[in-house]
């Protein structure tokens, strides 16, 4: 992919002015804490991607690249913070210079800027995972299976795969959920039809028998069958325009009975109990502030991600990375699983309650419709009001949100107003007073009503069948996708698992040559168990030492990257990955190269003592350090100072160190400046161990501050703080 030839860093992070000639070879940066090793890593990342991941993204709080990228002493001058990197592109056999300034991080000066060069750099920029720190690497190992799956999915660019799996699941579940009310509607329509037909079972034969009996009364031919194209009213003269429609007396009486039954069901103890349970379930959701807000946000997230577009927020125009936003929102939606379970439980209780209300609504509406046929129409108080109220409550129950509104409407769900009973009684009385229809009129009314209800039933069946087909298809697509993606991912993880174990065995061949591991993907999770010295498979954090865990993180990362990039994985910048001071097992030798990574260059930032710096790979490796590291540096290369290499020069400024007063007590200067000043003094003393504050002016408080300070010089002598105080 790329090889770094040299890098020049100015006023960036903890570095004032530094040029390193890497010459396209492996390069290790070593030194005590705070000497700027990570600054070199940050600078490389910045030059290549325009970003410094440790200063951006989730969980970084108030830290930002623009504010905290420049050297602390030049933090108000981002225009001075620059990184220039010279790279070669082996595939193009070209050398390219990239220069970035913190003032305009997105605008890199690239020379030459051929389309082929830009394409490769664009790809590098899109793969910020080439720069990782120990903290990031260890997440692959120690995270929970769900979190690990997220991390690995992000690395393998799998977030769309998972997103689609979740969305298909949602579509399938949603389409199956829609079947429930449709099944209820079919059952209601069937019962309604049976009631008017007055037959026990809805078969074609029994229907034809009663229908044809009425048609005979009207001297109409018998129907041979009851296909969808056939109407039981075929042959009946259509209603003359302007001719008032009569109230079908028999059907109206039957409708009264149906309405009373429906209202009795509404007011029944069963409905009261059901409403009480639903109310309790909703209040439980409402009482939990997290859950309640999550329920509301569920819809918001879903709608928001539907309309979210690349670029910027449509509300405030703040720029966003859509992929990052989706990942962020996806993490939030994970928290909604508990809510979804509670919500599903509530919805299960709600369904029969809503069905009861719909039934009451339809039955009372029927009475109202018949009342409107009278001349003049009967104005019966309470009919339309009640049916409207039933419809409102049923709609609210189906919508569920907002919870407060749903809970409120439930309070009156089982009450049937007295005046409604009065209105029904009045309706019944008026109907009874109607003259009995002739036999022909009764047959005509009956066939008309049968046809109406038959159409309602057929329509309900059609809708149910269509919904079933949709649900079946959605489920089939979802299941097929899950099976296919699980298969592909299992294959990938098997490859990665083998490669990981192989790399780990190589890195720890002294004591773990029989090591093996097991990576298990399942439903958005990624289990990871490792062998512990032949005693079985355990989570990586169970028994292995931290050093071994670090090594696992690095090996897993390398295996994943090798899967992702194949032979094109040739460049990685890894921070704090080699070894802790005094520890031998984090990375006992350089990354497993060259045998495993022939062309891969790594830029590990090393934390170890000079006497442990054992870069014995045979691959030309350079180290930058100072003080006690000087011999090592001498053996492996030279410290590259911008203005000439000299033990007396400061890498902060590149100038010979001047004599400065030590610690002007009471002076309000930044900690980093104080340390820099102290280091200048240390340079001047030229001791291999600069004992600061030899005159006793380094207070304990300043010591603590200095120990926390980030800014030190790469070439300073070993720093021993405050030994004399």
């Amino acid at each position, binding site marked *: 992919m790329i090889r770094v030839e040299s890098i020049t860093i100015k006023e960036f992070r903890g570095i004032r002015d530094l040029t390193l000639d890497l010459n396209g070879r492996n390069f290790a940066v070593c030194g005590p804490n705070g000497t700027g090793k990570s600054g070199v890593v940050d600078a490389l990342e910045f030059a290549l991607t325009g970003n410094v991941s440790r200063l951006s993204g989730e969980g970084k709080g108030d830290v930002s690249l623009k504010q905290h990228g420049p050297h602390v002493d030049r933090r108000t001058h981002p225009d001075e913070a620059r990184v220039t990197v010279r790279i070669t592109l082996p595939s193009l056999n070209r050398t390219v210079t990239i220069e970035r300034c913190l003032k305009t991080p997105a605008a890199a000066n690239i020379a030459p800027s051929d*389309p*082929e060069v830009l*394409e*490769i750099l664009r790809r590098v920029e899109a793969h910020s995972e080439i720069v990782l720190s120990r903290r990031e690497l260890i997440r692959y190992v120690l995270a929970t299976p769900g979190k690990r799956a997220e991390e690995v999915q992000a690395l393998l660019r799998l977030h769309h*795969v998972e997103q*689609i799996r979740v969305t298909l699941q949602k*579509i399938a579940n949603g389409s199956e959920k829609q079947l429930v009310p449709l099944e209820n509607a079919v059952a209601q329509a069937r019962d309604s039809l049976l009631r008017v037909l007055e037959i026990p079972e809805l078969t074609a034969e029994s229907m034809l028998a009663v229908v044809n009996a009425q048609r005979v009364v009207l001297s109409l031919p018998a129907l041979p069958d009851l296909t969808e194209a056939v109407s039981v009213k075929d042959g009946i003269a259509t209603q003359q325009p302007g001719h008032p429609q009569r109230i079908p007396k028999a059907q109206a009486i039957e409708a009264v009975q149906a309405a009373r039954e429906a209202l009795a069901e509404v007011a029944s103890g069963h409905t009261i109990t059901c409403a009480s349970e639903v109310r309790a379930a909703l209040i439980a959701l409402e009482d939990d502030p997290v859950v309640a807000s999550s329920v509301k946000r569920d819809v918001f997230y879903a709608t928001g991600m539907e309309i979210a577009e690349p670029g910027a927020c449509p509300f405030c125009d703040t720029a966003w990375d859509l992929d990052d936003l989706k990942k962020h929102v996806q993490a939030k939606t994970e928290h909604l699983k508990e809510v979804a379970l509670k919500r599903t439980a509530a919805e299960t209780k709600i369904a029969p309650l809503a069905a009861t209300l719909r039934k009451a609504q339809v039955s009372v509406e029927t009475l109202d419709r018949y009342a409107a046929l009278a001349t003049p129409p009967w104005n019966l108080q309470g009919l339309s009001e009640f049916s409207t109220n039933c419809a409102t409550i049923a709609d609210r129950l189906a919508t569920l949100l907002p919870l407060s509104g749903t809970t409120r409407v439930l309070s009156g769900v089982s009450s049937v107003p007295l005046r409604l009973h009065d209105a029904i009684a009045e309706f019944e009385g008026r109907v009874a007073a109607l003259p009995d229809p002739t036999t022909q009129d009764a047959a005509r009314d009956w066939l008309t009503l049968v046809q109406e209800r038959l159409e309602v039933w057929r329509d309900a069946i059609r809708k149910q069948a269509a919904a079933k087909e949709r649900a079946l298809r959605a489920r089939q697509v979802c299941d097929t*996708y899950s099976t296919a993606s699980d298969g592909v*991912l299992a294959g990938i993880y098997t490859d990665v698992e083998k490669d990981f174990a192989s790399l780990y065995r190589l890195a720890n061949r002294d004591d773990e040559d029989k090591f093996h591991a097991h990576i298990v993907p399942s439903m958005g999770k990624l289990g990871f168990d490792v062998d512990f010295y032949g005693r079985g498979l355990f989570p990586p954090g169970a028994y292995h030492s931290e050093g071994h865990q670090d090594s696992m993180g690095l090996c897993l990362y390398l295996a994943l990257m090798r899967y*992702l990039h194949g032979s094109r994985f040739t460049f990685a910048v890894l921070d704090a990955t080699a070894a802790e001071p005094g520890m031998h097992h984090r990375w006992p030798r350089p990354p497993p190269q060259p045998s495993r990574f022939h062309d891969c260059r790594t830029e590990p930032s090393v934390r170890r003592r000079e006497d442990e710096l054992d870069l014995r790979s045979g691959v030309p490796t350079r180290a930058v350090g100072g003080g006690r590291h000087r011999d090592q540096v001498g053996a492996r290369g030279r410290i590259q100072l911008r203005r000439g290499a000299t033990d007396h020069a400061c890498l902060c400024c590149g100038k010979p160190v001047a004599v400065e007063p030590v610690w002007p007590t009471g002076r309000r200067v930044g900690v980093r400046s104080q340390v820099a000043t102290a280091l200048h003094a240390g340079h001047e003393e030229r001791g291999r161990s600069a004992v600061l504050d030899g005159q006793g002016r380094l207070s304990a408080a300043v010591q603590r501050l200095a120990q926390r300070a980030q800014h030190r010089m790469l070439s300073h002598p070993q720093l021993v703080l405050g030994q004399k105080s």
Partner: protein
Amino acid sequence: MTESPAVQEMADVPAQVFESFLEALQGTDVSAEVVARLRKTLLVDQTYTEGALKAAIWGEEQST
């Protein structure tokens, strides 16, 4: 822009998953039209929203 050889060898895991899925779907009784729509949505348009997937599964007129 044509990708350079430097980037062509990169494993496109989502594309592998999508291809495997569509191939498996062809072996079911899901219609070829649905498979074609899903192929366009996932591999050509690369739109992964719920609306786009519904439209691919059920067709535009049934996607709501």
